[in-house]
């Protein structure tokens, strides 16, 4: 199917919102992996407490971001039913 070259601002924003939602797990994976490689310079050991604090903050941040995007997507989708559906597979 041929895709239009230019989109209305609203549809354009919606597509980027879907892109953001799809990229979210990659951001999450990056954040979740980070503390694994932390080592205490003094002892050369991994430190559990700061890693745990970082992980839970990153986790909560991801959830908040995900909620914001999902809510906006849900609103856009209930606004126009055909919205996020039709550009699905062609991008994926």
């Amino acid at each position: 199917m041929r895709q239009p070259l230019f989109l209305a601002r609203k549809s354009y924003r919606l597509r980027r919102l879907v892109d953001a939602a799809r990229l979210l797990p990659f951001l999450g994976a990056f954040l979740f992996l980070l503390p694994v490689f932390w080592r205490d310079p003094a002892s050369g050991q991994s430190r559990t407490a700061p890693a745990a604090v970082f992980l839970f903050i990153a986790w909560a941040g991801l959830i908040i971001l995900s909620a914001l995007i999902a809510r906006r997507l849900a609103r856009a989708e209930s606004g126009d039913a055909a919205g996020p559906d039709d550009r699905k597979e062609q991008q994926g």
Partner: protein
Amino acid sequence: MSFNLLVIVCLLYVSLLFLVAFLADRRAEAGKGGWLRSPLVYTLSLSIYCTAWTFYGAVGYAVRSGLEFVTIYLGPTLVFAGWLWIVRKLVRIGRRERVTSIADLISARYGKSNLLGVVVTVIAVAASTPYIALQLQSVTLSVAVFASDQPPGWALPDSGATAAWVAAGLALFTILFGTRNLDADERHHGVVTAIALEAVVKLLALLAVGIFTVWTVADGWADIYQRIEASPVAEWPLQPGRWIGLTFVSAAAVLTLPRMFQVMVVENVDERHLTTAAWAFPAYLLLMSLFVLPIAVVGLEVLPPGANPDLFVLTLPLTEGRGDLALLAFLGGFSSATSMVIVAAIALATMVSNHVVVPLWLTLRPAGARDPGDVRGLVLLSRRFSIAAILGLGLLYYRLSGGSAALAAIGLIAFVGVTQILPAMIAGLFWRGATRVGAGLGLATGFLVWLYTLFLPSFGADGVLSADLMTNGPWGIGWLRPQALLGTATLDPLLHALFWSLGLNSLALVTGSLLSFPGPVERIQALTFVRVFEGDRARRGWSQGGADAEELLTLAQGILGADEALAFFQAEAAFQGKAGFLPDTTPDFIEALERRLAGAVGAATAHAMVAQFTGAATVSAEELMAVASEAQQIIEYSAEIEAKSAELARTARALGEANDKLRDLSVQKDAFLSQISHELRTPMTSIRAFSEILGDTDLPPDLRARYTGVIREEAVRLTRLLDDLLDLAVLENRKLQMNMKAGNLHDLISRAVEAASNTRPERQMVVRRDLGAEFLPVFTDTDRLVQVFINLISNARKYCDAPAPELKIRARRKGGRIIVDFIDNGAGIPKKDQSLIFEKFARLTDTAKAGGAGLGLAICREIMVNLGGSIAYLPGQGGAAFRVTLPVRPQGAAMPEAADGSAPTETLS
């Protein structure tokens, strides 16, 4: 805390669950879904991911492996954060194809192959049985904590009876509320609601214990931070390999665990709930793991060494003297265990009955018997027995394993087991080229490698595999050692198993898919699944013959129940525009029926059952497709030819008509010239003859007067003819001066009837008028209109050949036009002449009889065109009939102000 109190509270809680499930089912049956179908309930039901393994085991895991326990919750978080990738597609497919279980999904995707369904069922049962045993063990252990006076250690209490009682109670609950209905569309509202309640209980319990630990036992987060730093828990190094591997396994498991698939896909009532679950479910997981590390750290400090860390959640409040909190924690753990077992039992029982029992029964029953009878009863019965059998199996496993090792180990083994379904699932969703052969090979390979490298060794040295085999490999072949395939001994056993099982699984899947050739049903299903968002379903190649609607109805009644089957057939018949209960067995209907049945017994079984009746089972699907495409080509080709020949015929007909008309016109033109010469010559001849006679001087005066009269009459006739010709010329050139006036149609008709009465005054003609309808205002050139009317009435007087001639005049207004019909009771005008009568000099009878030049109707037509209306011959009225149509208001030119001022002024605009 007395043990009896615990038993009473426990029984009360169970009764509450039964009551909630019962009320929810009643509500749903009454059609009052309401909050039962809210995204909140959906999200809470997803929380069966958190079993007793989470509730008790996470703390134990943290004690043994530090922060690593969070990987089990990070994986699902990533999957749900990226719900647009996989979860959404799964749910859409599940709803559209009425998928009943994960085995049904794989079976339906790969050409409705029941063999694949069986393989997935085996994997699921093998991986879930220890998991169910684990839940029974956790309940037993936690009961034992209360039963014994001193805090228990590793020693199991001698209360195998507890596990048996719990298993029996769960079986009862599951059978009562899990097998009330068959169809995937009729969801288990009771079960789901009870599970949502349990989800709330377990979250609250864990949060309560956590808050108690952080702010009562310890001194807030800062203190906890210090304690973690100082604790042995912090000594566990984070290993990148295990970290990534476990996150991946848990991400895969949340998609492939049969119980997760059940709540996430099968029990989903609305796809939009995902937008809530996408963040709310990860938030639930975050809250569940928030206090795990504090409880582990504080538990290690407070409790005596050697206390079972898997029970810290329970023993920590007990030791601190908070029996009520411990009771709440017990209920939380109980909820976690029971909800998991209930859903897992439903999911597994559906798989076992749809993919093993029913197909077996279909194969084993006497050949030739097409009527399947009461399949519904059979399926329900087999599900009930399957539930009991699965719980029995879990109990047996628990007894045999004797509650081996730590809880977390069994959980991870099960996770890696169900992860073997992931390659077939992902390839099925995204790769059209994945075939049944590939999927089967991959699943079998993965399952066997998992058994060999992880599951069997988990029974411990000399459990199932001998210690010699473990250290030296089978038959002394070192590179086949279960935990060091090809010498990969440095890998952690779990990672080793994951690496090899998933690697070989995927390799087999890809190789098998690339080398095999999929059948037509497989390819259609592949397209349907991969392109589920593009809307169009691939068409299936069913033949129409052989399927009898009545037989199919019998089949459907056996599976869906009589009322529902009848309702479905009636709706389908109505959809086809038929009354009654038997629709035509079109491919569309067959497909809809098959999908409907698939919701109850799974795609493979439904396909096999319907195929028996449609006769497609005997003809291979390839042949059908070949025939269908050939027939399609022929149909298209012949339709094309037909269209072309029809167009040719139309053109030929139009040409013929034009030709006929041209020929007639040419004849008319010749006739017109001879006619006009004749018309002019006749009066001229008599004028010349009589004027010569008048030249004789001795003519008597009376004769002279007569001849002079004849000459004058002929001159008048000549003048009238010339007038008519001039009039026609003016009208045809549209140069007529219109004298627009307002008038009443009734007056105009009366004038015309009056004026026409001196045409053949000797003939008596009855004029029938509808006086009431005639009173219509007109704004037009009234004199010209009257001229038309006079002409029509005179014609009727002249030509109507009935013995008692009669003329009907009917006037009415329709839309913006006024219609006046003149209908006589004569012979009418033959069809072949109807198109000629408005031409000049078209006189149908001979001139003498008519006494006119044959210009009348031609003039009428031109007048009406000038007035913005029309005149036409009305065939089929039982006589000659003419219809005069004129607009209520003339369009175009601005109208002069009417003399009497009655013209509506707004028409000037």
